[in-house]
Every structure is written in structure tokens, then in C-alpha cells.
């Protein structure tokens, strides 16, 4: 099949980018979109031109490394599927396809189709963990978790951290991502003691990194892990719960230390 690719080229964060056109005539419907990009790059390098920089790793939809905007949709035309899982059979023969990086103020472009998604890690760093040191955990069978609770926790834990939710959101909100982590951890018995602190700290960090949620729901439509939109409700619920707890549980009201990095923060 024949495709006209309009691909975003931008050498560095601080330089202006532009679309570059590449005509492909020998594409096959069974091919994956990223395999087509591999092929275009192969041709470019053989001709001595610089290839299109894009990220991908596992190519199985699990690692969350890949992620570009295809015709305005994060990841591509097939909903709830990573870029590496998009096949050419889902494009029309002869079509013009626009490939650009994830577009969000929180994700600066590094080069061509590669963006910096470290904002997501900073949200996890703010409290998206359970404070149990190695060797101190109780017997996992002594703390029983109902089957359906473990399953729902897993539904939220399935997030692959690709950032498509942020890129899809007209507000650039990270609520689906943040809420998924809060829902995952609040459903499990471990780390309940830090539940309120976690919600406040992660919520504050998400506010600093991303826009606010106004429930467009675009995030859940693109999410490759199919995180349900109720993650957003979980974020609001956990934050509200933490806020009300402040007045009832003195132990839970300790101010969260501002996020510090580097040596000697303790």
C-alpha cells in the first residue's frame, strides 16, 4: 500500500520543528506502524540522512516506552493500543498520515518524536510507593486479600506509564495516571498508614506538573492499559478523604515534606 507520511522533525528541545514528508510505496497492511518507521529510517541512513528519532522498546505494548501522536490521536487510530501495536491495516491505502510527538506542556520534546515524560516519575516519587523496607514484610498469606479486591487493584496497577492520557487531555491533566496509582495502592492492605499522606503529596505534585481534569474522558479512550475513568474518581476520593481525615486523625496530619532531591535530603 501507499502512504504519505508527514513526520515531525525537531533537532533539539530549543529548536523549531517542522513536518517533513516521506512517501512510502511498498508498505504492507500486516506491517506495524513502527516497523514502517524502521524501514523509512533504514532508507534514510543508507542515503546518509539522519533517521527519525523515536522511542520504543518491548514492542509488545507493556513497557510504555513508545508513544507518538498519529493524525492527532495519541498512539494511533486503534483505541486503547500502544503505538507499537498499531498496524497499517488500520490506515487507508493512499492516505496521508501525520506523525508527531505527544503534545503536552508537561512533555517537552527532546528530539523529533521523543518527549520527556519525567513528570510522571516525579508524581510517583512524591508518594506512589509503599514504605516497607526489604526483609520487613509479613507473610503474604497472613494478610488475606479477597480475590476481587486483588483483581480490581490489578486493573489499576496495569498502567504502563506511557503518558498517552496526558497527551490526549485537552487540559493536559495527569489525573488518570495519578488516580490509577492511588486506586491501586489504596485497595491493598499494605501502606494504608500512609494513604492520606500519599494522596495529598501525589495530588499536590500532579497539580504542579499537569493541568486539571474537567472529565472530557479522552484519557480512558486512548489508554493502552484500559485504566477505567473511575481512576479520576479515585484521585478525587482519595484527596477528599485525606482532607477530611486531617481533622479527625492527628497522626495523619503531619505535613508532607516538600519534595527534595539529591544527597542529604534525609
Amino acid at each position, binding site marked *: 500500500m501507499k502512504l504519505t507520511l508527514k513526520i515531525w522533525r525537531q533537532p533539539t528541545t530549543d529548536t523549531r520543528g517542522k513536518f517533513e514528508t516521506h512517501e512510502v510505496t511498498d508498505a504492507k497492511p500486516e506491517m506495524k506502524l513502527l516497523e514502517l518507521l524502521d524501514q523509512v529510517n533504514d532508507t534514510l541512513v*543508507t542515503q546518509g540522512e539522519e533517521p527519525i528519532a523515536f522511542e520504543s522498546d518491548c514492542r509488545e505494548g507493556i513497557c510504555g516506552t513508545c508513544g507518538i501522536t498519529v493524525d492527532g490521536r495519541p498512539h494511533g487510530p486503534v483505541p486503547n493500543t500502544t503505538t507499537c501495536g498499531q498496524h497499517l491495516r488500520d490506515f487507508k491505502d493512499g492516505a496521508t498520515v501525520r506523525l508527531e510527538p505527544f503534545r503536552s506542556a508537561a512533555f517537552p520534546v527532546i528530539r523529533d518524536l521523543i518527549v520527556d515524560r519525567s513528570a510522571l516519575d516525579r508524581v510517583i516519587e512524591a508518594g506512589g510507593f509503599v514504605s516497607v523496607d526489604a526483609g520487613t514484610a509479613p507473610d*503474604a498469606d497472613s494478610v488475606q486479600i479477597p480475590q476481587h479486591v486483588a483483581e480490581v487493584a490489578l486493573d489499576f496497577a496495569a498502567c504502563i506509564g506511557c503518558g498517552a492520557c496526558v497527551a490526549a487531555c485537552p487540559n493536559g491533566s495527569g489525573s488518570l495516571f495519578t488516580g490509577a496509582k492511588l486506586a491501586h495502592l489504596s485497595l491493598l492492605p499494605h501502606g494504608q498508614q500512609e494513604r492520606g499522606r500519599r494522596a495529598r503529596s501525589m495530588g499536590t505534585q500532579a497539580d504542579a506538573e499537569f493541568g486539571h481534569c474537567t472529565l472530557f474522558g479522552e484519557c480512558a479512550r486512548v489508554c493502552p492499559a484500559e485504566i477505567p475513568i473511575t481512576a479520576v474518581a479515585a484521585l478525587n476520593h482519595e484527596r477528599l478523604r485525606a482532607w477530611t481525615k486531617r481533622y479527625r486523625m492527628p497522626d495523619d496530619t503531619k505535613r508532607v515534606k516538600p519534595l527534595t532531591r539529591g544527597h542529604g535530603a534525609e
Partner: protein
Amino acid sequence: MTGLLLDELRVVGSNVDGGVPDGDPVTAWDRRKMSYRLVSPLNRRKFTVIVVGCGLAGAGCAAALGELGYNVECFTFHDSPRRAHSIAAQGGINSPRARKVDNDSVLRFVKDTVEGGDFRSREADCFRLGEESLRVIDHMNAIGAPFAREYGGQLATRSFGGVQVSRTYYTRGQTGQQLEIAATQALHRQISRGTVRLHSRHEMLDLIVTDGVARGIVARDIVTGQIGPFTAHAVVLATGGYANVYGKSTNAMNSNATAAFRTHRRGAYFALPCFIQFHPTTLPISSPWQSKRMLMSESLRNDARIWVPKKKGDDRPPNDIPEDERDYFLERRYPAFGNLVPRDVASRANALEIKDGHGVGPLHNGVYLDLRDPIARLGVDVINERYGNLLEMYQVNTGEDPRQVPMRIGPGAHFSMGGLWTDFDAMSNLAGLFVGGEASWAYHGANRLGANSLLSACVDGWFTLPVTVPNYLESLLGTEPLAIDDPAVTDTVNHVQAGVAHLLDIGGTRPADHFHRQLGDLLYDQCGVNRRADELADAIDRIRKLRKEFDDDLRVTGTGAQLNQELEKAGRVSDFIDLGELMCIDALDRDESCGAHFRVEHQTPDGEAQRDDANWCFVSAWERPTEPGPYIRHAEPLTFTAVPPATRNYKTR
């Protein structure tokens, strides 16, 4: 002819000592731990440890050392630690907690692991693996991995390739992902506490060594291209395996051997490089542009049945082939284990059927993996619950619904049992260089059992390295890491810069990928599931020619002072080529069949691997010559007392 050639390729070195305490291997780890020196809590912050890699072994080790109070500098070439390839392990993690009355025990786990590895692993290592596995499950559960639960609330387990007990803990088909996310969350906790400093998008390109002691690393900032040194009291490599040497494997696109192989160039021994596992259940290559061998978890083999048409070249749609014209060859050849035989046995049987003309699919290079019977028995809902995401993955990639049509699978390079040689303390022959996870050779011998890789990475990361590294550090109390302006540091940085400049300056015509594909095809063909002396000798010859072509005709576009993925690839392919040569030398040298290393000259009358314990019951630890010349093969003899060597038998039990 082979004998002559071998002598040109390698010389026999000396014996190396694995450092396992004498006596009963069952208690070796406890006794060794008691002999370790400790670092007092107040002194820990005086030590800096570099951890390279953020997979389960690296993230676990960095987080655990941080929790203990050490300064950790953690490196990953990914943008975020969570991307490490540990995420892709689907099936589960073993632990012989023996909560079910199926007669499991640590000893039985060790027996399975040692036998599964065909008696080419260190017995005492396997005891550590089994013993520490018990608290690995507790820990990973506590830090956020939502393991599957029974309706009563207790942990669920399943039985997994190669064993007859139910000791595999899992989270649907995404166990690796959930464990990796939990581990990196723990890492982020330490980053926020300031004990760990994360250097993301940094690729390690060399090891700094003085007098046989590891003192630091040289890494390249992938975004700016800046090459800089980092020094520390000890270095931990947890950089994963090298199955990508085969070009198309189940590994991620960026998985590579560069950190491990450049460490090898600096004097670290490389153990058993030819031990590569071919996963029996990967999607067959059906087109030239296919970027990898996608893995279908072998947990599917618990329920699905493997078969081929009895008639050669039978092109009928699978559902039109009647029951009596199907050959369930694994069940036929291995009645006791059936579809659950270890991976190497399954891969070889699959390869054999395909070679015999029974292969299915457009290129006749696969076998069927059929869910028809379990769906009839259990219903489609149960199958979806167990394997839902795997089935969807298959459907997305092939356009076929595995609930309606049998899946097609074939053997693909998957896991490297070999790796940098380490002693019982997980330290290499270079003092201060520790290796964990798949980057090391430990635990798996000539074949790894399913669900043992997540386990070995977790055990190394959380419970081995955090006690063995301090034992080494204690002797360094009062010393500082090597100064950044030390000549050894500057020399290493200059060496890396020269290497990068060389790749950019070749100015040939072909991208690195071309050489990688050529190397991979050659290795699949001549150093793959089946190996033969003359083919291996020929492969070495061809790889050396490829090396020369690479040095003459490589084209890397762009510069070194920018994000340059072609440059990254070129460096990795360059190391893969030399590693491929070493693999073939090791495969040629090891004149026996064992586990995944199948030399066709050495097989039983019914086609099984024939070990030669009298001559080959040792670990080959390869030293790279400093001057051009033959490799030096050192040997660590292996002894087995708790699990006496026996021929593996999956036909009867």
C-alpha cells in the same frame, strides 16, 4: 580439523574458585552470610555504590542499599526505571513455599532447578535461590504487587513449565510488569529520600579498573552525548541478558550486551556464553520487516495443547484437521510431563517437527498451540481470566482469535543463562564488581526453568547483593572513591571517546542494523537450537569477516554530541559481533550436549541431549586476551551432593 582450529581459538587456563564454603550445600548460604563482615549504620553513608540497570535486580539492589543507608548512583539508558525489560516476563515467579499439600519443598525446588539446568549450575547458588524466594514473595506483595488471590484470599499459585508442583505466583499474564513497577516504586521512594540518585538516559560504555579492582564507570548521556566518569567504592551490573545477539529475539529492541561485554573487555570473565534459551512459544517470523520474536507466555502450555498435522506440508485450516490426523508430539514423546516439559526440550521437539516438514503457517515454521480442549472443558471465561491479555496480544499481532483458531508458535532466542562469571558472593573476578540478574551466569546452568528468572533477579537484588556488597565495602572503610582526575579515569574516558569517534568516522554505506541482522541470521542458523562442530567453526570464520566488514563499511549519521540512536545501535552491534564470536567458540569448545546447548554429535539414540560429566562438569569462564590471540578458558569445577547427577527424564517419573 576441529581440534586444530580449537587450539588456535582458545588456550586452557587455570581453575577458578567459586568461593562456596566447604560442606553441605544446603547450609552454605547461611554459613557464608555468618562469615560476612558488616558495615555499621553510621558508616554506610560514607560508601558510594554504582548500580547499572533498573530492572528487578538493579532496582531492587539500589533500593535495598538505599534503605540500608548507602549512597547509590543508579544508571539506566531508559527514560524511566519502569521501562526495564523485566516488565515483559509474563508467566510468574517461583517460590517453594509449599502451602499446598503437593509435596513441594526447597529441596525439591533445588532438584528441579539443578536438573532443569542439566547440572551446569552451582548447587549452593540454587539453595540460596530457593531459600530466599520465600521472603521475596512476602516483600514484593507488601510493596505493591497485587498477586493473584484465591477466593478465600490466600495467594494463588499455578504450575509452570518444567515442574510438577504448583509453586508459581503470578499476576494475570503481567507478573514481570507488576514486580518491576513495585520495585521501581521502592526505588522512587529512595530517590525521594535522597539515598539514590537516578541517572536516566545514561548508557554505561566502560568500566574503570585499576589493578584488577572495579572503581567506577564511564557513561554517555544519551540526550547531550556527553561522556563522563562516575567513581564509587563498588559497581553492581544488572544490565540484563544478551539474547538480542540473535537480532530478532523476544528481548526488547534496546536490550544489549554492551555494559557486560565492555566489562569483559576490561578483564571480567564471561561464563558459558553459548548457553542461550530458545523459547518454544514465540510468534514465528512471517515477514522480513517483523521487528522481533514476540513471546507468548509458556503458562499457556498449562492448558493449551501443542500439535502438528501428521501429514507433512498439510495446508488445511487447523480446525479442518480431524483429531486422528493430529500429532500431539510432546504428549506422545514425554507422557509424564506432556506439554509442560522444560523449554529446551520443547524447543528442540518443535524445531524437529518443523525441520521434518510438519511445520504450519505460511512459511511452515511454526507448530500449533491449541486452546480448543481447555475451552471446552473450562469455558471461555476461565481461559480469558487466566490468559486474557496474552490472547489479546496474539489477536492484535496476527489478526486471528486464538479462542477460535489455534495459535502458531516456534522457538525464538529468549534468555541468556550465560553471563559475567561471579562467585558465590555475586562478585566477578574483578574485585568490587558485582553482577546480578540475567547479566550474571548464576543459578540456571544450561537451561532456565520458567518463572525462575524473575526470581533470580529479585533474590539477587533484594536479598543477595545487599549483604554481599557490604561485606566487600567494609574493607574499604576510610577510603574515598577514585578521584575524577585520576589517570585511570581519564584514560578510560579517552578510550570511550576514541571508540565513539571511530564509529562515527568509518563513513561506510550500511546502517548498524544490517550487520545485526546478518549476525542474527548466521547465529540462528549455525549456533541455534541445534549445533555442529563444522558449522560452528564456519560461523566463527564468517563472524570475523563480518567484524571486518563492520569496521570498513558501517555508516553512522549525525554526530556524537546529540541524541543519536544510530550511534547507540552501532556501539551495541559492535559488541554483539564480538560476543557472537565468543559464543561460537564456547559452543565449539564444549564438546557435549547439555540443556539448551545441543551438539548434534552428542545425543542419545532417541535424540536427547547427552551430557559428558566426566569431561565437562565445569563452568567455562572466558578471559579475553589483551593482545590479539586465542581466548583463555578457565574452569570452575562443579560438584553435586544434594542432587546427584542423573540423566534428565521427562518421559516417565
